[in-house]
């Protein structure tokens, strides 16, 4: 009689355990909601200008470059040790979770694409995640070695010239 009771308790406990484990392995769920992602993006520390990007590249073995371009563009030329994960296939990449604890820099031809990937992965719980504020298309060996100060793209490079001839009739 007592044995039967113990078996029932153990069985129900294992059912609960199995349910919890199954749920925590659900990959298709965000860890951070929109509000927390918004707060995180306000820090602005994830946007790397060219000098900051070069600094990150020098810490190479500890930093992984994730190239979001198409496989074709990637094969044409890429950073050494860069990993090619096109944005469209980002969730299907088999060893995606391997990168969870390493420092990652997202690069692409389009800032829209790298920012989308940044928002997505940030909400999935990636912490040391950066994006390069520039396009790989415009990046050459010369620009990489050039050490001139580089301003971020979110700075207006033009000044508005008011037309003083406009008056109010």
């Amino acid at each position, binding site marked *: 009689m007592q044995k039967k009771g113990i078996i029932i308790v153990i069985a129900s406990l294992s059912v609960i355990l199995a349910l919890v484990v199954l749920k925590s392995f659900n990959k298709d769920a965000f860890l951070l*909601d929109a509000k927390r992602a918004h707060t995180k993006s306000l820090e602005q520390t994830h946007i790397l200008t060219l000098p900051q990007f070069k600094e990150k590249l020098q810490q190479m073995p500890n930093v992984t470059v994730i190239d979001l371009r198409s496989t074709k563009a990637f094969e044409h030329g890429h950073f050494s040790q860069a990993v090619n994960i096109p*944005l469209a296939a980002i969730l299907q990449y088999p060893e995606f979770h391997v990168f969870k604890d390493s420092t990652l820099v997202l690069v692409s031809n389009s800032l829209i694409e790298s920012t989308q990937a940044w928002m997505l992965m940030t909400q999935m719980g990636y912490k040391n995640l950066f994006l390069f504020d520039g396009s790989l298309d415009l990046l050459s060996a010369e620009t990489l070695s050039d050490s001139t100060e580089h301003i971020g793209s979110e700075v207006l490079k033009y000044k508005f010239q008011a037309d003083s001839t406009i008056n109010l009739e």
Partner: protein
Amino acid sequence: MNARVLISIWLVGMGLILALLPNNQTTMGQLKPSELVEKMKQNDGLISVDQLARLLVNEDSTILLIDLRSPDEYKECNIPGSVNIPYAKLMDKEFGGYLEQNEMKRIFYSNSEIISTQAWVLVAEMDYKNTFILQGGMNSWYQTVMNGRFEGERITARENALFETRMKARNLFIETNSLPDSIRFQFKIAKQKNRKKLDGGCG
């Protein structure tokens, strides 16, 4: 003995309820990662500065231009007809009305594409449609619409139309932004009042 059984049943029941509760990790009504990636793949949430110039010149009233830059930058110059929602305040309740609707085309712009894309993702994952990113942002607007000049021997009819639209948009931009601050500000307040009236009527 009886009490023990009751307590065990109660504990197991509570455990089951806890295990079955939905993960409180994200808010309700939010897209899953896979659904968000599908939205990103469609790639239809982009608008070029030339398309925007055409919409402005044609006085399209179905667009809602949202300037995500700081109030100071907005005051300095902004694209005519835009409202200022600084990115830091995007999730504030006071601007909810601009975001939680599917009728008007929201066009987000910042100086580049990073801030506007971040805003796009946040609105997209709340499953609102009709949201667009201005490609290249304000820098591209300046480069193409404000400073773009035709260089070539012969102009085609298509190019002619393009440059005429750019010129009209450029004049509109300069005229609106050259007005004294007091008048521009009055205009904005009047617009907001109108908006409130409209909202009430439909409610």
